[in-house]
């Protein structure tokens, strides 16, 4: 039974909503969300990113728009467009902070109130995909976000992990969260999976290898692939560049493109 959807809901024009989750911090949720958005854009899609990490909003910098302001219109907040094309738009608390070094030191209830606003009051317009980037964990932000999005029937969640057991241990709990909240798991990404030395091509598994793939098998969810550590990718994110456009020969590119393709294939399957 769907809740009543307001007539002119700001999410009415959004075709597919997907969340990027992880039980573990620092595994690359924002990175994957960013690269997925860039890849989908290169496939001709219009994408929005909603960054609900209130304590550590990374998305604006990854698109070099960290100094932008947000404006309001009749229907709510106008998302920040990353370029002239208006093919990628963002909303993040990062835009609302007066000083970027200001800490958002809020307890749960206040965070929940802002998240509800973010979900309902951003005037996205028509989007093919809305990607929701989250902080690590299974707490206020996650519960509120999933509950607020539920009437709009999200496509599901992409879970990101690094290969080692310590990360996988937390991501298992995130899988439980998804199950309990009725959120479909689109698949698991094993990020930071191996490093190929640019000087001698020796591969070192700095954060181990295989844990994400094993978890996907164990949990019966799709495995979306391994993304290697790639200094060019890190550099790109630091500078807010379009890695997909500018570094197609870089080591992380094939895996990132493949993830996006699987998401696209999944949406075609869903419609048919």
């Amino acid at each position, binding site marked *: 039974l769907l809740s009543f959807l307001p007539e002119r809901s700001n999410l009415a024009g959004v075709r597919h909503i997907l969340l990027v989750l992880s*039980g*573990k*911090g*620092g*595994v690359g949720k*924002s990175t994957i969300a960013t690269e997925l958005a860039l890849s989908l854009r290169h496939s001709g899609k219009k994408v929005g990113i909603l960054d609900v990490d209130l*304590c*550590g909003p*990374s998305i604006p*910098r*990854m698109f070099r728009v960290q100094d932008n302001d947000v404006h309001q219109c009749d229907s709510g907040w106008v998302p920040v467009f990353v370029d002239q094309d208006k093919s990628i738009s963002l909303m993040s608390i990062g835009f609302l902070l007066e000083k*970027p*070094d*200001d*800490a*958002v*030191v809020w*307890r*749960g*209830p206040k*965070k*929940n109130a802002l998240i509800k606003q973010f979900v309902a009051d951003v005037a996205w317009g028509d989007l093919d995909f809305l990607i929701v980037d989250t*902080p*690590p*964990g*299974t*707490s*206020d932000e996650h*519960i509120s976000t999933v509950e607020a999005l539920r009437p709009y029937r999200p496509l599901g969640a992409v879970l990101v992990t*690094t290969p*080692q*057991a*310590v*990360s996988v*241990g*937390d991501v*298992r*709990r995130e*899988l*439980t*969260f998804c199950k*309990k909240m009725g959120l479909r798991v689109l698949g698991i990404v094993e990020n930071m999976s191996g*490093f190929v*030395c*640019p*000087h*001698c091509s*020796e591969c*070192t*598994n*700095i*954060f*181990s290898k295989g844990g994400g793939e094993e978890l996907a098998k164990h949990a019966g969810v799709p495995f979306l692939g391994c993304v290697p*550590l790639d*200094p060019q990718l*890190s*550099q790109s*994110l*630091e*500078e807010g560049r379009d890695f997909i456009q500018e570094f197609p020969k870089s080591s992380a590119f094939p895996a990132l493109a493949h993830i996006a393709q699987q998401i696209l294939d999944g949406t075609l399957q869903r419609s048919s």
Partner: protein
Amino acid sequence: AEAAELRERLGAVKHTVLVLSGKGGVGKSTFSALLAHGLAADEAKQVALLDVDICGPSIPKMMGLEGEQVHQSGSGWSPVYVEENLGVMSVGFLLSSPDDAVIWRGPKKNGLIKQFLRDVDWGEIDYLIIDTPPGTSDEHLSIVQYLSAAHIDGAVIITTPQEVSLQDVRKEINFCHKVKLPIIGVVENMSGFICPKCKNESQIFPPTTGGAEKMCQNLNVSLLGKVPLDPQIGRSCDKGHSFLSEAPESPAASSYRNIIQRIQEYCDQRPFQEEKII
């Protein structure tokens, strides 16, 4: 009355160190575990490690204590001991399965943190190390609030070199200033990688804005040290062993040891006073 309870329980703790970061996945738990091992190497010292990351409790695995449960006695909850002089507490010990998720909102998390501080029978400890989740939210506010009954020597802040981390860590530093928590210093983790084959260095997480060094200069906090990436660190953590014992000759182990020593020196400069006026 609550404050009095906490004061009583924490009154016998000589030094308390918080391990913080605005950013996730930079190595807080790794560092907390190694700091605990490092300090407990002196068998005369009693060390306690408290893991208040309720959603992602990594400490039990890193300390080789997965599957352990907490026992209750008349004097409260017993910590789980790795060594005779090193006790650990984590929500991980309260979960019966590795798939169990703690899907709690703020107030319930705060309640558990208070219980950890009030009900765990640590005994007399020289060092209480508190590992935290990333961010500046309920857990952090609560810890600082409840620990006002005890004496916090300060916070060690962990970062990695790139701006994406530093931008969150600056917020954490501001949080510390806001709540008047002294900062012992910053550790720059994952600082470069030396290929084991050709020995060339790669900056996998590039310090595009000057890394922790520049940030510390700008914000007038100490840089305690830099630790390079070393695949053995992750392996040791996954096995639940101390990296310092497994790879004592590695450059990363040497960096960690130096940093731990600096923290110890910082704490020693602030002698424990029996009577605390709150």
